[in-house]
């Protein structure tokens, strides 16, 4: 075992070893191995493993050094100083490794961690999708249960090292009915599986470090599930927190699971806070108010189009607004009326419902933008609408469209904005 429990001694040892062996290393390429350097990078990882510098903070049982995250941080600094890569690639040694250390079964750890530390297994990350970018909650890749495991179909993009990877860490939606971040699972994908196709993405720079990966009914066995089924968001958040920690080239969080749980806990806390503040208290405080109601009309409400083309659509049951209204503690009237989806509802129906709150979308990004106030004023002044409670009592509320239409964290932002406005009525 290289190094010592003492950080300073560990640093001296690392620097000495690097000074001697840096000539055998590929140039420092950062977090992603350029495709042409994969073989030297694998050899370098093997050399690091043989000398005991691979995974200093990983448990000894998993092939690591059994030291602390601080030791790993020192190793990263010394490698950076020497101008050599600290490991083969970030996806394998930080993300996949971190996820397996935090959430993997004994079998998974035994299967994957050793080969990864020895540079025998290159990993790629299959998170981003063409439609969702980095917004993992809007993930579209589907994993349908199929006997022992799942059948996965979808498309992933901005996958680094997809062409040379042996395995990938994959996020797929295992529960299509669950809310945004609840139905996702974290899977390990053997890139040699039938149905996996990798195509390089040509970048503006002329190179192509990234790939698109097409998954066409790829079978993933149940043994490849990391963490709880449908609980992949937590695993991913923990893993990505790892990545962020690394990109700062500072400390590494081996307590990644805790970080992921913390991220989820923060969201849950915000939802819980919404629940405690629900306008139920408002209802008892203001005797005349029987129920707090909300309706959306997601028409564009600029002055001219509103007059000529006032056909309104209401966001009823099963829409993101239904969840937003529920989180904010409002009753979505059209949902209660038995409607579902985005439904064209007559203006006279909207007036007859006479909700206390009418939520419209604001074309601006932030709620204090003057465009939101203007949208509210214009909407409230529409013929017929001006008689409603919402229009009379400032209950027409414009929420930025990006939050109102969000399927991720923006939903909570929308609910918070909405609840704050309703409570201030």
């Amino acid at each position, binding site marked *: 075992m290289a190094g010592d429990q003492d950080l300073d001694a560990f640093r001296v040892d690392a620097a000495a070893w690097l000074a001697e062996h840096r000539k055998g290393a590929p140039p420092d390429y950062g977090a992603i191995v350029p495709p042409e350097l994969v073989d030297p990078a694998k050899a370098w990882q093997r050399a690091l493993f043989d000398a005991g510098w691979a995974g200093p903070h990983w448990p000894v049982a998993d092939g690591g050094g059994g030291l602390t995250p601080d030791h790993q941080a020192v190793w990263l600094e010394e490698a950076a100083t020497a101008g050599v890569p600290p490991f083969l690639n970030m996806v394998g040694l930080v993300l996949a490794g971190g996820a397996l250390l935090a959430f993997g079964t004994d079998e998974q750890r035994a299967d994957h961690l050793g080969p990864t530390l020895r540079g025998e297994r290159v990993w790629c990350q299959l998170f981003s999708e063409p439609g969702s970018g980095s917004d993992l909650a809007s993930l579209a890749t589907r994993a349908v249960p199929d006997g022992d495991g799942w059948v996965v179909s979808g498309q992933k993009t901005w996958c680094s090292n997809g062409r040379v990877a042996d395995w990938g860490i994959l996020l797929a939606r295992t529960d299509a009915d669950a809310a945004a971040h609840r139905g996702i699972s974290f899977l390990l994908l053997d890139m040699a599986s039938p149905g996996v196709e990798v195509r390089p993405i040509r970048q503006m720079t002329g190179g192509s470090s990234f790939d698109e990966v097409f998954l066409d009914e790829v079978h993933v066995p149940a043994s490849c599930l990391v963490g709880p089924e449908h609980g992949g968001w937590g695993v991913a958040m923990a893993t990505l927190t790892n990545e962020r920690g690394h990109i700062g080239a500072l400390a590494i969080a081996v307590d990644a699971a805790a970080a992921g749980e913390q991220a989820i806990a923060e969201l849950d806390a915000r939802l819980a806070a919404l629940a405690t503040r629900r306008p139920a208290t408002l209802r008892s405080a203001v005797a005349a108010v029987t129920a707090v109601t909300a309706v959306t009309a997601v028409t564009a409400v600029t002055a001219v189009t509103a007059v000529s083309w*006032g056909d309104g659509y209401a966001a009823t049951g099963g829409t993101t607004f239904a969840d937003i209204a529920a989180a904010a503690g409002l009753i979505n009237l059209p949902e209660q009326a038995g409607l579902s989806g985005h*439904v064209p509802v007559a203006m006279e129906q909207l*007036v007859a419902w006479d909700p206390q709150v009418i939520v419209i979308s604001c074309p601006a990004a932030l709620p204090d933008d003057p465009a939101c106030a203007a949208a509210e004023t214009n909407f409230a002044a529409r013929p017929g*609408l001006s*008689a409603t409670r919402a229009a009379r009592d400032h209950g027409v509320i414009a929420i930025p469209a990006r939050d109102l239409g969000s399927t991720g964290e923006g939903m909570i932002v929308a609910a918070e904005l909405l609840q704050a406005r309703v409570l201030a009525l």
Partner: protein
Amino acid sequence: MRLRLAPLSLLLLPAALLLALGTGPGDIGVGEALQTIASHLGLAAPGPGLRDAIVWDLRLPRALLAALIGAALACAGVLTQGLFRNPLADPGILGVSAGAMLAAVIGFMFGAEHHGLWVTPLLAAAGASLVLLILLGLHRAQQSLATLLLSGFALGTLCAAIATLCLALGAQRWDLGIRVMQWSLGSFEGRTWIHLGWALPPCIIGLALATWLRRDLDTLHLGHDIAASLGVDLTRLRRRAVLAVGLLVGAATALSGVIGFVGLLVPHLARMISGPGHRRLLPLAALLGAVLLVLVDSLARAVTTVVLPPGVLTSLLGAPLFLWLLRRRGLGDP
């Protein structure tokens, strides 16, 4: 029987309007609706604000606009049929509505409607007139009805294709797509007194022109040569009839979207009651057209909470009728 039915039909429009006012959400019956209107005329005390908003701001202008546009489309149908001396001619079938729609879609693409509410009706009227003029240019008196209908069909398809092309080119503009889609279904949803105000002038001018042309149209019915020998200036008649149809179809299409088959359905019904003379045919067709659209829109609002497009309902009624007429009459000359 013909003459006895005509006065009776005068009662139909008020009855249809009352039905429209008493139909829809909010538990507002005909009595409450009448009371609300009376309060606006200073004849009764004002009722609850919501009822007032629903009846006076939403239902009444909507019903009146439906009536006006029904009358306009029916008269445009009578004019077109008189002009081509053929009962199967109809602005919708001949592509005139498609011409109005294309002009309006191009207007939407360039945001022309932001210059004022009058722009879209004007554009639609120009588009409708243009298609009609092209048809008249292509049409010779001796040609068969098949040639006329197929020419109109081809022009209509061409207009629709260009409109679709415009939509495809502007596909990233979601608002444009949804607007055109709603519009092509036809709707009176959200129309207010302002819309009624914009619809009135072109419709009144169009209806007045039609009334003015009724004698010449009667004479034309006897044939081009006879009409010419009886002193009808055919060129002038055509020009005025085209202007009238353009104004009527343009205003109707611009303000309520595409509502098909009214111009075919109603003149036939009216002709069965009043006979072919335009003096009686025109006002009766206008009246029945108004009644039809008011009833159709009431039906569209009454069936579900979800708004049904009235243009779909008129097509559901009109298309089978067209097939039935084709089968009964064939494509021969009138």
